[in-house]
């Protein structure tokens, strides 16, 4: 407890590219850990994590359940959780989120807005824990200290896990992504009706939407003309006449980039190997497809 603070900072050695390449929430998380005073314990926890002592991390509802192989035969059970926002808090957050279409837009597109905290500020709460103390934890190891090295080992691995799914943070605060988006849609509707009322357009809009809703679903053309069951008069699209390969660096794999899967510390090359093998096989399969396309109709 009274060990002097170590000068050497532990960065997220898990990523070879360094912090700059990480999404902001991972970066923030690592900063949080590094603010921890007991560097010796952190170092030991880091070793634990790297050597694969953490056997599982699961996000179950609002809690993180993990198992860490310690000195005893059975792994220790670790729980981590954040303070959940209550419904009132969330209603403030939702209201704030609705004010800017961009926030909904990004969340829908699977992007965590960098300034999301501003929406949370409206409720006086935060999405991200500000201090390490806000991260609640429990471990069934005999060590009385909290966080113990088992918990700390989980800290290290959590950052990477956030990048698999940034919306895990919402989950830990009490709303899954699905629920959040649902609530946002509702909230947006309220805002819209309020705006509509204000501009006295309500009548018009109501009429519009009613007539629109009354129109029955269009019958499929094949119902009117059953011969469409068999008919196909299309011709081969001109782009498909000659089948060409992708331009250099223009495949789906290239655009998708790094696979956002937390690395298993014992297999530091796994992700990279997995991707490069996919690239390699992909170009082999592309060759094969082009060959097959050339012999069509022979």
């Amino acid at each position: 407890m009274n060990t002097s603070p170590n000068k050497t900072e532990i960065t997220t050695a898990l990523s070879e590219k360094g912090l700059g390449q990480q999404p902001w929430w991972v970066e923030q998380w690592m900063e949080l850990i590094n603010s921890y005073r007991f560097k010796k314990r952190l170092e030991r926890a880091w070793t634990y994590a790297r050597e694969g002592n953490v056997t599982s991390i699961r996000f179950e509802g609002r809690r993180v359940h993990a198992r860490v192989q310690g000195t005893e035969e059975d792994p220790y059970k670790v729980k981590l959780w954040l303070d959940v926002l209550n419904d009132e808090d969330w209603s403030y957050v939702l209201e704030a989120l609705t004010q800017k279409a961009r926030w909904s837009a990004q969340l829908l597109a699977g992007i965590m807005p960098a300034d999301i905290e501003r929406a949370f500020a409206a409720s006086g709460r935060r999405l991200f824990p500000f201090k390490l103390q806000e991260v609640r934890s429990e471990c069934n190891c005999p060590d009385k200290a909290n966080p113990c090295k088992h918990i700390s080992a989980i800290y290290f691995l959590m950052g990477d896990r956030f990048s698999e799914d940034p919306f895990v943070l919402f989950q830990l605060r009490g709303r899954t992504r699905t629920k959040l988006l649902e609530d946002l849609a509702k909230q947006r509707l309220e805002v819209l009706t309020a705006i509509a009322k204000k501009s006295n357009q309500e009548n018009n809009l109501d009429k519009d939407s009613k007539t629109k809703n009354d129109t029955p679903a269009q019958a499929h053309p094949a119902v009117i003309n059953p011969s469409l069951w068999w008919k196909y008069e299309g011709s081969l699209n001109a782009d498909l006449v000659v089948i060409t390969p992708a331009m250099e660096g223009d495949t789906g794999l290239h655009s998708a980039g790094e696979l956002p899967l937390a690395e298993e510390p014992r297999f530091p090359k796994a992700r990279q190997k997995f991707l490069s093998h996919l690239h390699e096989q992909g170009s082999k399969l592309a060759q094969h497809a082009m060959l097959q396309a050339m012999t069509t109709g022979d």
Partner: protein
Amino acid sequence: MSLLHATWLPAIRTPTSSGRAALLVWADTWRVAAPAGPRDTPAMHPFTLAPEELRIWLNKKNLLPHEIIDATACLTLPSRTVKSKGKAKASKNESGITEEIIESNWTGLPLQAGEPIPKQCEWWPWQVQGLAIEPAAATTWLSKLPLSGNNPDLGEELRWWSHLQRWALSIIARGRWLPQVELSKGEGYPHRARWVPLLNREDDRRRLEELAARLPLVATCALPWREPTGKRSNRTTRLRPEAMRAANPVASCRPRSGRLRVANLLEALVDAQLRKGFETNTDQLDPLLTTWQKALGSETGIITLLDDEVERLATASNHWREGVAGSVAAARACLELFTPTKDADLWELRFVLQAEADPTLKVPAATVWAAGTQTLQLGEIRVEHPGEVLLEGLGRALTVFEPIERGLDNATPNSMHLTPAEAFVLVRTAARQLRDIGVGVELPVSLSGGLASRLGLAIKAELSKSSRGFTLGENLDWSWELMIGGVTLTLHELEKLANKRSPLIHHKGAWIELRPNDLKNAELFCSTNPKLSLDDALRLTATEGDTIMKLPVHQFDSGPRLQGVLEQYHQQKAPDPLAAPEGFSGQLRPYQERGLGWLAFLHRFDQGACLADDMGLGKTIQLLAFLQHLKTEKELKRPILLIAPTSVLTNWKREAQAFTPELKVYEHYGPKRPSSSSDLKQSLKQIDLVLTSYGLMQRDSALLETIDWQGVVIDEAQAIKNPSAKQSKATREIAKPGKNNRFRIALTGTPVENRVSELWALMDFLNPRVLGEEDFFHQRYRLPIERYGDMSSLKDLKARVSPFLLRRLKTDKTIISDLPEKVELSEWVGLSKEQQSLYRKTVEDTLDAIARAPRGQRHGKVLGLLTRLKQICNHPALALKEKHVLEGFLTRSAKLQRLEEILEEVIEAGDRALLFTQFAEWGHLLKTYLQQKWHFEVPFLYGSTTKTERQAMVDRFQEDPRGPQIFLLSLKAGGIGLNLTRASHVFHIDRWWNPAVENQATDRAYRIGQENRVLVHKFITSGSVEEKIDQMIREKSRLAEDIIGSGEDWLGSLGVSELRELVTLEETN
């Protein structure tokens, strides 16, 4: 004939199968079937081939896939209601009181492809037997199917499948895929590793819409089906009826918009192929990635991991994919850019929602916000959660075009402003990137990157004053201006604008973008100051986007006189009709006058013309009228060579005698034909038209070359379709100009424009330069069109040849009003050598016998002679009572040769024909011969056909969508009572002396219910008894109807000299 179909079977779990998807290949075929209805489970489809038959059939067609198993599926098919009388009775007998309510017991029959659609159509599920192919094997099989053309054995949806598979190959070739982990859809479904296509690119999205809009529903009309038997611990068990009912309820699938379905099918094809070819290498991988990778390469894709580990993989892979492509929706976000208003600096960018299926369907963001959680109707397209769709797209757009962040600052953004620099970035680079991630971008027309936004030319041209527009090489009076984005500019202005070095320029009210090479191209063009010929004008106005010296032509204004020439050339305007010339003894129908005008028009330009009118529209008459026109105009100075198949030479001669008696016709035919140039020249003095056959033209080509022909006409021009055949080469050779110009006309009844492979030789005959050398033609047109069905090449080809082709169909609206509903055609034919000598010998031998015979026997002998002569006119084999069709069968009869030629056109056109003969033996021989020739069944209805067989033949001919196209009938057995309105051709192969009997037979087809014009072909062997009797029938004055009305008996009482005159074979040469 059977027709092959392919239907996708979605993944289903059965006791015996792993629950994998498969492609069901099945075939329908016509047979007599009783109506059926579903009981506990859907009824059996009565028209499918059983798996064993299907295997044999596919094997014969070389289409048998690998890795197949017999399978049954439940398909929803349009069906016709047919009451089943027998059934209702039976259930009443069983139990006095009808327990089952018969009314609800629907019965009927499934419709087959191509069958006419009844007024009342219902959709019912049917059990269909076929062969199931595993997805990977299915992709291999689909790759081998033809990509274009109509194959009579393959349902149209197979072409749709082959296009889908081609797209799958393209997706793989371009690497537009990502591996994913798909969570179980519920108990019993495993988690799977899948290969998923990425449909974010603009072209892929468009393709999805195209294939979805055209999806033939039979491709996806399967419901899950569970086999009634299952294996449980070595024991085969049968499902109890309740279980069967529960597993396979009588239910139909609803036809729905195909977007999602097609995306799923594409995924299935892509997944199967990548999975099959993927080799694993788990070196240095952690356990999670190892499992995933192995599952990606495994046949089933099943992942066995703890639920939470799989969920992790699923979330991560999903998140990974979201960065590239969203999900498949009916609409997308779209950014619309508007140029600044007057004096303003800022550009406006509006947010709109745009339908995927039709980019012109758009609604502003305000409407989307107002719709709230309700669905939004975009034209006919329903969009669920429109607000989410729009927002998601905008969120995605932010990742490539940052400036819009400003515009999304409030709750319900509608539009925003962009600075000129930002607008330029959008136009130049971001628009493409945005489209790549599935966000629509609409730019002002002058900047849209289309042809109009490129620097090009606006042209004004007119024929020079002295010119009448008769030669293609002549130069036009013309002027031009530079044009870009719809506005014109001078070179000077262009230079000034280019000097501004600003990427987006405002000029004459439009915003334009100059490209680096624009100024250079324009300067080069101006300094060259090229000439414009009539030929150029034709080319430039034929297809869009043609260029002169790299500059596209945006506008082509032609003066009134040039306009007239161009319009006729492009057939935008019907050619000016030309009335029948003096000396033409006959009437031309209005469309024939137009045809004549067209021939005269092209002749004026010295261009070859191919008249390809449908059979029965009178090509012969139009050509004869044209020749007479030349004669009347005193333009016919040298002889014209007409080459035709031997079988129609007689016809030509007769028609020329009838319609153009002024034309001097000479036949270069037979053993006595001149063999030296001087003899030939001597014979051709004063001659206008020389008839010869293809065979003799080839043999005597050196001799014929010595004549300075004014023109060469080929009839049945398909005879030269094979470019390397000697006959074709010789024909093309003789069409080349000699000392003087030589016009070229081709006649054919086949749809030449659709037979790419045959076009080259024809065009080489008509106008050699149009399609270039054969090798070039093969690479440029034939390969892309025939193998891949490349429409742009086909369009280009058609644009090139269409000025020289005129084809009218009997069904054309402008033709229908000109034509009577029944057209009678006399098909004049000659006799083969064998027929001639047999005919002569028979006449000589028999006439003496008749003269010597006692009166009582004479009658019978006369009729016997006439019958035998008619048989000889049909075929020597018939007269000689031969039982088999031996080699050389065709060449022994001129009539058969002509019949075969006409039938070929009938079959090609997809029409149906009735063939009447009075000789049952001839029917049998002909049936055998035609079946050998075309490899399909030819039914023959005659005296010994049983009542049931008769009905089956008639039903099949009338109803089977792929039924026989040719139906042989004996005049006696088939001439009355039957209804055969599906036929639009009637052939009277041999003549009956009584027109009433012939007409009655004709009326099998020409009666109520007939929707087409009926062509009646009457064969007449010239010079023979057939021709003379035909004459007698026509000349009613000599033979009152009541005499011939009684049949053939009157012939028996003719005197010997009358008889001799009647039967003696006249020299037709």
